[in-house]
Structures are given as C-alpha cells and as structure tokens.
C-alpha cells in the first residue's frame, strides 16, 4: 500500500482517497491546534467550507485535508496555530 508522511508516521492510503479520510482511517483525529486556546481540531464539514481540518502540506500552511487527494509525495504536519 502507498503511504504519505504525517509528522513522523507513515499513513497508508487508497488511490483517490482524501488526506483527511486516510488520517481518520489510521485513527489520527488531531489535525491541528487552534491559535488561541490550542484546542485540537479535526475534520468537521468534510467539503472544504469550514477550514477546520487544515494541515501543513510540504511546508505550506492552511491546506484543507478534506479536499486534498492523498499522494506519496506529500509530507504533512499537524498545524500548530499558524505554523
């Protein structure tokens, strides 16, 4: 099975699957920490409206995990505030 990186772990994914779905399948529910209260957030609306599932993708912040198709070239980090 193909994998992408989430922090230091390899997350397996099916072809065509979203990054969010692959993370949840792997039991990874904490996608990011909020700016003010450092609360954990995850997938919420699932269709790109709410921006709650944002992660850092290959160094680029604010990428919506629910819209992004999983790919071996992705190195993803939990987003902490705006970093």
């Amino acid at each position: 099975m193909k994998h992408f990186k989430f922090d230091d772990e390899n997350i397996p994914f099916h072809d065509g699957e979203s990054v969010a779905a692959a993370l949840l399948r792997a039991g990874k529910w904490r996608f990011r920490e909020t700016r003010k209260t450092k609360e954990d957030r995850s997938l919420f609306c699932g269709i790109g409206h709410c921006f709650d599932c944002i992660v850092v993708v290959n160094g680029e912040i604010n990428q919506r995990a629910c819209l992004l198709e999983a790919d071996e070239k992705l190195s993803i980090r939990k987003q902490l505030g705006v970093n």
Partner: protein
Amino acid sequence: MGAGPAGLAAARILSEHSVSVDVFDQYPRAGGQYWRHAKNEPFPAESFKTTLTSSRLNWLFECSIWQIESEKSGHTIYAIQNGRTIERTYDALLIATGAIERPLPIPGWTLPGVMTAGALQSLIKGQGLIPGERIVVAGSGPFLFPVIESLQKSIQQSSSSNPSSDIRIVGIFEARKLSRWLLNSVGLLLNPEKVIDAMRFLINLKREKLRVTTGRVITSIKDTNSKNVKRISVMPLKGEKVSNNPTGQELDCDVIAISYGFTPDLTIPSILKLKTVNKEDDEIVMVDSNQRSSKLGVWAAGEITGIGGHEIAIREGEIAALDILGKGGSLTSAIRKIDRWRKQIFATGLARVYKVSKRWFEWNADDVVVCRCEEVSRDEIINSFRELGADSVRTSKLFTRAGMGMCQGRLCHRNVQDIARVFGSESTKISRPIGGAVTLGELSD
C-alpha cells in the same frame, strides 16, 4: 456557476441550443453536494450523463470565483484555477451555488469526532469510510434520513465483509416532534410520493431495530478520558426551550453527526449585490417566476432561492435556462412552473415543520464557541451587543472577529444572525466584497 442539480439542469437545456456555455464549479467533478461521488465512481444521475460529455459545454472545475463586475458590455467573472486568474465576460449569468449545511453550536462541538451530518455522508459515500464505532446522528430536518440510510447501508456492507466489525448507531435524535407534520398537510396532499418515501424510511429503520427519538436535542458533548469517546447529554425540547421533564439522558459515543438543515450560500449573490428576501428566517435571493434576479442578465436557481432539495433545484435550473434562451413564456416552461409550485409548497411546509429555534443559544447556560475559526464564544457575541454597542452581525464582527476567520463566516454567519435578531436592531444581511481566497498579487494584477 455551480454544477449541482440546478446548474446541471440548466446546462442540459442550454447544451441543446447553439449557445456557448461555461460551467464553473469549485470541486473537481460535477454533481454538487447532492450527487457527490468518488473519483472512480459513475455519475449518480443517469439522465445527466450525456450532459457531462456535451461538446457545447466548457467545464471549469476546481475554479474559485472571487469577483464579478457588471457593465453594459456584460458580466466579467474573475476566478482562480490552478493558481491562475481566469477573466471572462458573459451576456448571461446563472448562479446556482447551493447551500451550506447548518450545525448548531453545542458546548463540546469543537472536539474531534463531532462533525456535520454532511461530513459523515461525504466520508461514507465519497471515501468509503465509517469514521467510528458508536455513532450518534442528531439535529433536525429531512437531511438526517438519507444520512442514516447510507450509514445503515455501509454498516451492513462492513459487517458482511468483516464479521468481527462492530459498528453501531447508538442514537438518533430529532429536535422536532412528528406532530409538527400537521404544519405541512397541504404539502403532503400535493406531494403524496413524499409520504411513501417517509414510510419506506421508517420501515427500514424498524427492520434494523433503530428508532428516531423525537423532541430531543444534544445540549453538551464532553470528552471522557477514554480514547476518542465522548459523553453527550440529550434533553427534551419543548417548543423553543430545553426542559427537564422528562429527565434527559447521557450516552457515550465516538462520532457525533449534527445537522440542523441548510442555509443558502449567498457569497456570490452578495458580490453582485442581488436583492434578497426573508423566507422562514433564511435570507434567500429574490427571483421572479422565470428565476430572474434583481440584476439584469443575472438568473438564480436552486437552494440560494430557497431551501427545497434537488427536485425543485432541477426545475428552477430548467426554467432559468429556458428564459435565458428567450423561451420564458413557452409551454415547456409553464409545465415546469406548475411542478415547481407543487414542490415549493411542500418545501415551505417542511421548513415550518423543522424550523430551527431562534433561541438555540439558550439551551445550555454554559458558554459555547460560535465562530470556530476565530474561537469567539456566544457570551462574547452577546456582550458585543449588550455592552459594546454592536447592532448587527457586521458590527458585532468588528468587535469580536466572529466571521473573520478562514471560512469567512460561512459556518457561523447564520448562527450569529439569530443572536443579532434577539439583541441587535440593524439589518442582519450578508455583504461580502470578495468571494474567495485570493492573493494580494492576483488582486493587484
């Protein structure tokens, strides 16, 4: 704009005539939310398959419209696709951008595992994933039915392919009592097929030994120490208020799907400053019988002209397309208008049956985050009205930042609007000069 049911229905008619048509959509495939499907799946609606391959239609997918300028020469759309700005001018625009799901803020609703019913639906249907083992579906309105149906179906599939899997729906809570359906008696008489739909659903539930507990709302969600398990409180709703009689219940689960219906996505109509009207507390785009908006050369169809579901959206898209072609007075159009009228009566009745209480923010005395992006709470928003002098959604936003985050108020606007209707005085209408994320570089060009 929008390749959901309304947009596709219009495109189907336009593609049969010699006009040149561009179809914009922000997603990679046609279908909108209603016909959402996975990449390798066939298109869910058979009757639109030929439309999707029509050579007369030019599809602009993954395209985000951020500005529209109207001049005598036409309407110019500015959109971003693959990081590049597209600029094109049109004689006629049809806005069919649909609706946004509406969850209500509940203390604990920001915990991972709490999601909109639409999110659960998209994981099941679009990704083939049931994200938990003990699932609760709660909220209000007819959208809960198809979500529960697809959840049931995929649970059955998963237990037949893997006998050791133990995924269960542990609770279904609908805020409104079944007796409120009396408010839609005329709608039911005019749309008897809907009664059959509802019966079929209830029989299905019974077969699975599931039941919908009506007149109940979740009032809090608390994290337990156990991994991803949450404890919810469910209380009776009497009229607009949470009551303690009969006493509430507590329940453990890992996934909670919430939906209180939909609210029109007025992002693009607000760029064009289209006139809106209030329908059952929702702000909708004002249109005439041919789906013409208040602006010359701009039509609107589907959920932005009133929440009603895909069947009305299809009719409205067709009526708009016929009028764009100069056939607004034709018999084909008239037949569709009668059908639209019949369905609209049902939809309006439905909106009354499942009307969301304006006083939802009083269901729990504990404070709750309303704007998830900027982490602004109910009490901060109320305080902006009571103490700081805010009088509208807009001025409250300036004090609190509610609606200023990444989602640009898409999720909280409707809920802040309810608070503003109680504590404010000014217009609560939405106004947004730019429709989507755009870089400073693109703006300066």
